[in-house]
């Protein structure tokens, strides 16, 4: 019984990885579309920089989010303690 389960789990994991890869490709495609879309309308901007690069919001977002997650990863090293750090009974 147990032996039978393992390959199945592997299979679902594989499926998950495939779906993840699919989602990434789809998102990547949608991102490119959204950048291309920038070329086809007149932008109403407050700052010139918004108009310099097509997809400026997208690039800012991509870089910002990566930096954000990296900083969060770094901060975890400093801030993370064991779950019962404050010695309060764990019951939620």
């Amino acid at each position: 019984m147990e032996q039978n389960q393992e390959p199945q789990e592997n299979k679902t994991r594989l499926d998950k990885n495939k779906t993840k890869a699919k989602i990434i490709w789809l998102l990547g495609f949608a991102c490119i579309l959204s950048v291309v879309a920038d070329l086809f309308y007149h932008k109403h901007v407050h700052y010139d920089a918004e108009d310099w690069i097509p997809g400026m919001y997208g690039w800012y977002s991509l870089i910002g989010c990566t930096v954000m997650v990296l900083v969060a990863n770094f901060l975890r090293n400093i801030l993370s303690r064991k779950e019962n750090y404050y010695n309060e009974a764990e019951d939620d």
Partner: protein
Amino acid sequence: MIEFPPGLILILGALFVPILPSYFRNAYMLALPILGFWGLLILPEGILFSFIFFDYTLAPVRVDKLSLLFGYIFHIAAAVSIIFAFHVKDPVQQMAGLIYAGAAIGGAFAGDLITLFVYWEGTAIASVFLIWSSKTERSFRAGMRYLIIQVGSGVLLLAGAILQFKKTGSLDFTSMDLSDLGPILIFIAFGIKAAFPLLHNWLQDAYPEATVTGTVFLSAFTTKLAVYALARGFAGTELLIWIGAVMTAFPIFYAIIENNLRRVLCYSLNIQLGFMIVGVGIGTELALNGTAAHAVSHILYKALLFMSMGAVLYQVGTIKATELGGLFKSMPYTAGLCIIGCASISAFPLFIGFISKSLIITAVAEQGHWVVWLVLLFASAGVIQYSAMKIPYFTFFQKAPGLKTSEAPGNMLIAMGIVAFLCIAIGVYPTPLYALLPYQLDYSPYTATHVVTQIQLLLFSALAFFLLVKTGIYPAMIRATNLDFDWIYRRLLPMIIAGFGKLITLIDRLIRDTFLSLLNQLLKLIFKHHGPGGLLARTGLTGLMALLVVIFLALFLLIYFI
């Protein structure tokens, strides 16, 4: 038509809850906010029910567009929270929820600082029972800390009000500036409830400990009452722009690494408050409209998110990302409604966040605060990382740890459905909301620029999320406590106090020991000279005495003759 002070219907109505039979209670409780809402519709604008209390003129009800908007949304939040809690039979929670909502509504209509203070403390005291109702040791302690901080905020407000009265001779709750101690104290009191940076930690500490239904109530009222109070009292205070900017950026990192998903939502709540605070700080008509609109949309989508996470907690018994996953199959409706909440918080076009957040961001850009503008964009993109993707991914879609559960109860789904409907309806057709804003608004959110740039922002952020998760850079969820500012008062201060106690013991010991050893030395000295064998205690013979006398006499004679 009989006019009735807003909020009082809920507060007085709550008193009858325990004596009503439980099968009748739900209908009764739901009727209260509906009645209250209807009461708002017939309320004329201006100062009402004004009376003189000793020498002070009090204005318990002031009706204008700003207070009405908060009044409406507070009533709606109360009604859906009550529906969400239909299965709860505990009269303490039912009463606490009603009184809490009533106090928040009353606070939004307070025309003077004393009335505001009464309602302000009312929200603090009523709401703590929603936390204590979890009946765990953790929730008791967190509730205690919450109560101390909240009541402390009220005390500061009262102190500020008294100083303000001494200075100006008026208790009116109007626009103030930070040139005097009175307004500064009031500002800090508001800041505590609005979860300013370093004053924020009660929020993330206490809200996740409240009951499943209690957190939904909590998420709507306290902080938004504070935002209202700031918009009323300190609109255009430049300091608020920077405070708000810090609020939108810093909690992001905590939200990303936090494991308890209700706490993630609390950090996210804090971030969204930052947007509103920036709007208050900018203080232009567009910005204040943005703050008011964003408060409305925030109450709705945040309630939806807390409800969906509450439903998961109710069904599964835990809300830790490490223990969840794969719930999409067993709770499809909750998952779908949660995703609507996520689309709303990330301000996706056609959802409510899209038509409110942009008012604030546009106002910031118009005033030329480009640094703050970049920070707000950063937070707008980051919402995907810290909540809009994180919450549904870890709850519903990550690899299942084999949880067996079923869909949330009907009342929860109905409550979530109503809010989800509002999130989409107002998102698609914002005109009625715009008409209710405090100032005339000439703004169209659905321009090509706005739609395309916002979609770019979100798509790239979503792409980043999936890439980071796939490459393992996105922090894996682990069971941990992340140190936040509460460490100062939960660890450092007790350590300092304990250390201080030890120091005093040490000094005390040192003084006693030194004194004792000095005393011992003295005793030894005395013993040496007076003890047995000591020089001064020696007993001589009588013959020796006679000899000494003879010697002295002989000496005397000798000296006399010389």
